[in-house]
């Protein structure tokens, strides 16, 4: 890794963090307009400076550590979340010749880090020593490990089609046909699991605000809460990017007319934002699942379906 690579990595991460900060503006505007409201309008033109105002406010908030909490673990939990969320970015191929780390086990790396991210929620809920946080952390652990299986199994089909676990190779294997067509079943399973894995509506039981106040984050405030928030939205971006890379052809775009002059990374960002929009659209449409329903969907529907998808893919490749 040369100095130039290092500088590019820092620039990519900074741009990513700005996206993570601004996606909450996108979310509030999307949900606002879907509910026939305007969303944030006060700070700057159409509220465009709202995320900056929010970040400043959180930065100047008092840092409250509950006296009953387990302090070192309480301190470390949000940092684990941020590390797991942001460093998944390393293997996403942004354009044809560039990803920060070109690992041949890209998919495994992202799945591993999303499991590590679950630790931040679990130990954050445990360390707070509050009943709401504890329940939120427990729910999060059971939910994340249940959906991780179906998510991992749904990506096996993609790896069989591409013959590689390297994300750049997977994009190259889709030059003729995007994997969303032969792997539509895997795509559905993957997206539902991704919603549960990132604790988003309709599977946001770990922080179900109607029953658990704010779940695992109840005792967190100010900058520590902001780090949890960053980790969650970084996770949304990473899962959207993984979906775009594995099923929608990643950086590749139409090669006709003036479209062939558009830089590759623009196509990737467009696809990622299409998925992010889908996340917000689902959030403003669907109610929350009950916990037993959540477990039923994961264990009784998604896992058998993803195994069936693997067998089907194997049969189709042999014939």
């Amino acid at each position, binding site marked *: 890794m040369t100095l130039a690579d290092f500088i590019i990595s820092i620039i990519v991460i900074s741009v990513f963090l700005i996206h993570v900060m601004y996606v909450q503006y996108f979310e509030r505007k999307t949900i606002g307009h879907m509910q026939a409201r305007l969303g944030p309008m006060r700070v700057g033109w159409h509220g465009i400076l709202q995320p900056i105002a929010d970040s400043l406010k959180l930065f100047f908030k008092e840092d409250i550590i509950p006296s009953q909490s387990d302090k070192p673990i309480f301190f470390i939990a949000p940092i684990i979340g941020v590390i797991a969320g942001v460093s998944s970015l*390393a293997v996403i191929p942004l354009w044809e010749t560039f990803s920060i780390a070109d690992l041949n086990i890209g998919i495994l790396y992202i799945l591993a880090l999303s499991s590590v991210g679950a630790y931040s929620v679990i130990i954050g809920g445990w360390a707070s020593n509050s009943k709401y946080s504890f329940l939120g952390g427990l729910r999060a652990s059971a939910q994340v490990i249940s959906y991780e299986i179906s998510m991992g199994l749904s990506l096996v089909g993609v790896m069989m089609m591409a013959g590689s676990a390297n994300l750049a190779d997977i994009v190259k294997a889709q030059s003729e046909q995007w994997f969303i067509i032969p792997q539509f079943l895997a795509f559905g399973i993957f997206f539902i699991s991704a919603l549960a894995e990132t604790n988003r509506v309709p599977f946001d039981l770990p922080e179900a605000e109607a029953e658990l106040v704010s779940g695992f984050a109840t005792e967190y405030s100010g900058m520590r809460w902001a780090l949890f928030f960053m980790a969650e939205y970084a996770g949304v971006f990473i899962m959207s990017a993984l979906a775009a890379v594995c099923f929608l052809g990643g950086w590749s775009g139409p090669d006709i007319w003036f479209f062939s002059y558009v830089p590759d990374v623009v196509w990737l960002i467009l696809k990622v934002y299409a998925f992010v929009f889908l996340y917000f659209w689902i959030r403003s449409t669907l109610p929350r699942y009950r916990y037993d329903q959540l477990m039923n969907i994961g264990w009784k529907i998604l896992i058998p379906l993803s195994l069936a998808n693997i067998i089907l893919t194997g049969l189709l490749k042999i014939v």
Partner: protein
Amino acid sequence: MPGTYVPSDYFPVLVIILIAASVGLGALLVGPLVRPRRRYKQKLSAYESGNPPVGEARQKFSVKYYIVAMLFVVFDVEAVFLYPWAVAYDKLGIFGFIEMMLFIFILLVGYIYVWKKGAFEWE
């Protein structure tokens, strides 16, 4: 040193982890210089709808969570076997396909057994 394997592909991963950690730590460590600090006992107690907290938060919880954890280990080991198989699928051909069908079949027997035992029921 001859024979020493240096995983140089993973060096950028280490760098990005350090950058992410410094973002998190920086936000927490710079803050105390500008933040207010007015603490008292009630503010530092755990939130329980405004009442003083009753008892310990870390109480007994349902054994269901342990069962989910055990099932997870079984199925995750299965997934770990499937990854290298999927990557090498084209080379293994029909032999690899049949082998893996046997493996999935054995696991399905266990899956059906666990289902019939009611481990997936979350009353």
